[in-house]
């Protein structure tokens, strides 16, 4: 993209005469330019050191010298070979792309910005070219004509730039005739970069925190309990119901795990209050854990090994506490890990029992091996069996749409459960256009470790397709709430909406449940769970 600003371009007469066509260069000849706002700050040395990861150092992507180890080339090539031998996905995806271009315009970063290297096919080609140049005969002989290239430091920089401009959302994989999954490619790319110590702090610091304290924010156990006290005070304040959850309690039937952002960050806390209220109302025999206090797993954005290292806590804690099964809260990438990796990596969970809802008696057959149930599966079952007293009218000032979070949609297929709950707890629900929801949902552009403030420009750009669909239902139906079931979404979509559709606020599903839930012994509800008036004041019109 042309962003060099030669002073003569600004001469008045020439301003209108500039030829905008960028030079027709091959993509291999356009090295990346690290402009502020388009890259994430590098991992701090102390975090890498704590985790025992290679090459901790002070550096910046904008530097000329990245202080790579002397044998960096061998490290990468050996790392590639190892992964080609270990992952059929990687090897097959390197080999079978026919460059048909079906994926080209499916990436939200390409749609929002037009950078060709954000086309999934080219993002994969960044690494495929090195594969061809070093691991295939045709590539070695034909070289560039066959899309092969050697490994240079510029390639490493390019990988860093573009593999941290992919949110591993898997939208492209839906459209690929061979199911080539760019998330898989990006994961490999990031693993390789990790071997050189080229990580980003927004990912590595949560990983280090999570490893030590059990959660991304590094909240220590006593502080965590304090935070809950505040949430419980707020609940009592707004509903009149006093709740006393337990922590690290042995012998509970169920362990509940949710991303830490739910009890710490706005607006996740309201969703968290929803869990607390729901479980209290049911009289569920469950416990929280301070050790396994993080459902999220930024290991997913680092390496497979790191996923396993962080995820190990969940089963370990379930075993230590002697629970029967596990419920997981609303989170996206957490569920990718719980659903597709946990059992394989840290199972078998033979010390747990097949999940059965103690309230309805429903056996969750689809979780019989992993023994972990998604909260929307659990709640949908409750509603279907009439176990909850709900007053959807309490959500009447909200006009709601639902954003399918990438991982629950494309790594699980959990599409109807959330919709069923939403339709039962509120009266105004509007779907966004068909090609922007369900398996075709657009990413928030802040997933996979990109949700940091220094990436704001990229995030707003990549989030535009999502925001654009929200704006459409906002203009058409007066939608003022965007519901989602992902902690990263709740944080990043809030900012995204503030930029593109400021009238729309972001909410979790169980926040809506909390509002609608009629509890035993509650006082007359005049405020919602956020403490805002339940009904619009007269004359005030939130709905356009």
């Amino acid at each position, binding site marked *: 993209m042309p962003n060099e600003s030669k002073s003569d371009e600004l001469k008045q007469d020439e301003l209108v005469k500039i030829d905008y066509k960028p030079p027709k260069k091959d*993509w291999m000849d356009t090295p990346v330019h690290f402009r502020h706002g388009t890259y994430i700050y590098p991992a701090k040395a102390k975090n890498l050191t704590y985790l025992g990861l290679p090459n901790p150092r002070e550096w910046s992507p904008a530097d000329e010298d990245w202080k790579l180890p002397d044998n960096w080339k061998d490290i990468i090539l050996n790392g590639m070979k190892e992964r080609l031998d*270990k992952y*059929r*996905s*990687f090897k097959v*995806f390197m*080999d*079978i*792309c*026919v*460059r*048909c*271009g079906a994926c080209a315009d499916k990436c939200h970063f390409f749609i929002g910005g037009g950078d060709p290297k954000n*086309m999934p*096919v*080219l993002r994969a080609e960044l690494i495929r070219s090195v594969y061809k140049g070093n691991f295939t005969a*045709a590539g070695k002989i034909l070289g560039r*004509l*066959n*899309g092969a290239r050697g490994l240079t430091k510029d390639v490493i920089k390019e990988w860093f730039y573009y593999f941290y401009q992919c949110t591993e959302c*898997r939208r492209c*994989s*839906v459209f690929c*005739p*061979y199911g080539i*999954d760019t998330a*898989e490619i990006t994961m490999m790319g990031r693993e390789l970069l990790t071997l050189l110590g080229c990580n980003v702090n927004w990912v590595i610091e949560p990983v280090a925190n999570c490893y*030590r*304290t*059990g959660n991304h924010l590094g909240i220590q*156990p*006593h502080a965590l309990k304090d935070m809950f006290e505040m949430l419980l005070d707020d609940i009592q304040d707004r509903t009149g119901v006093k709740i006393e959850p337990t922590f690290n*309690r*042995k012998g509970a039937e169920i362990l509940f795990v949710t991303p830490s952002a739910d009890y710490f960050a706005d607006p996740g806390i309201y969703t968290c209050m929803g869990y607390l209220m729901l479980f209290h109302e049911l009289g569920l025999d469950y416990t929280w854990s301070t*050790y396994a206090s993080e459902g999220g797993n930024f290991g997913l954005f680092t390496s497979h*090994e790191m996923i*396993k*290292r962080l995820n*190990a*806590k969940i089963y370990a804690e379930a075993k230590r506490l002697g629970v029967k099964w596990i419920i997981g809260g609303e989170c996206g990438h957490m569920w990718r890990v719980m659903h*597709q*990796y946990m*059992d*394989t990596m840290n*199972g078998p969970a033979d010390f747990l029992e097949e999940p059965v809802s103690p309230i309805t008696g429903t056996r*969750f057959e*689809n*979780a019989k*091996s992993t023994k972990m149930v998604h909260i929307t*599966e659990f709640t949908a079952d409750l509603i279907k069996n009439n176990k909850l007293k709900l007053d959807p009218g309490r959500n009447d000032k909200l006009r709601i749409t639902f954003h399918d979070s990438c991982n629950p949609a*494309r*790594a699980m*297929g*959990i*599409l*109807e*459960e959330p919709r*069923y709950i939403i339709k039962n707890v509120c009266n105004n629900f509007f779907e966004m256009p068909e*090609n922007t929801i369900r*398996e075709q949902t657009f990413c928030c552009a802040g997933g996979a470790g990109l949700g940091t403030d220094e990436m704001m420009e990229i995030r707003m750009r990549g989030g535009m397709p999502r925001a654009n669909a929200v704006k459409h239902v906002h203009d058409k139906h007066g939608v003022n709430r965007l519901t989602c079931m992902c902690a990263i979404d709740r944080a990043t979509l809030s900012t995204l909406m503030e930029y593109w559709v400021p009238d729309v606020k972001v909410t979790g599903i169980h926040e809506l449940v909390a509002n609608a839930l009629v509890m035993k012994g509650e006082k007359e509800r005049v405020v919602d769970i956020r403490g805002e008036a339940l009904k619009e004041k007269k004359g005030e019109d939130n709905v356009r």
Partner: protein
Amino acid sequence: MKLLVAFISVLVLVAIPYLGITYAGMSSVFGIIVPYAAVIIFILGFVYRIIKWARSPVPFRIPTTCGQEKSLPWIKQNKLDNPSSTTGVVGRMVLEVLFFRSLFRNTKTELRDGPSLAYASSGWLWLAAIAFHWSFLIILIRHFRLFSVPVPYFINVLENVDGFLQIGIPTLYITDVLLLAAVLYLFIRRIAIPQVRYISLVSDYFPLFLIFGIGLTGVLMRYFYRVNVIGVKELVMGLIALKPNVPADIGSLFFIHLFLISALFAYLPFSKLMHMGGVFFSPTRNLANNNRMVRHINPWNYPVHVHTYAEYEDDFRDKMKSVGLPVEKE
């Protein structure tokens, strides 16, 4: 440039047998040695590639789900786009392999105002891909009449269906037209749509030219410059019976056709055309989304460093006790 290299390569491939037959009389080289060599390379190469893929394990079960999962009994599962059983996976693969299900997804979008060529291309891409692959398959099967005595019944049926338009003498096969048209479309699309042109490599153009060459020589032989079919069949049957001999007067056009086919066979295992085998190996498509029902085994799962609860409690014991959190060791 990339296009030119691919084009010239195919021209060279055309020239080699032409010159060899016309001026050097090397009919046994092009009629016997080359086809045998090509078939051997094809089989060995194909097997080698498949084994190479198969040797890399599938450590994790990572299907891309494109529909509702199997969960509660009253929620309708999308069994084809999000299969949870082997039957479902087979169904999904059948749709994918025979009907290009994923590619078809591209076509489902509403239009803003009127269709335009390049936009519609996503729909056309699916159509052209279908036309191309199916025609190719049918033409391939039709060629079995050269491989067998007597000609099996189903081949006659297929030929009748393929030629149902009853145009011309000899009867025009629809697949011949479709194949050439589809290849032509795929080629034009590749150069006309900038996104696609930008990512195209020699190895993308080359097979298109090669297959077009094969189709063209085939069509020329059938409709315009008749070759000695009896001779051709004799040659082919000889090859199959491992008693090769080359009848005289077959015509150089046939040898060009045969040589190009040989080139395609020999080239296939080392190219992106391996997608025909690879699609069956794609872990995002060929696995059931039954992750939480059946444990998937990773053969190289290895122990990793973890931060144990005991270590955690050692770090925070006093703080935990101060707020009444239960601890293991006092």
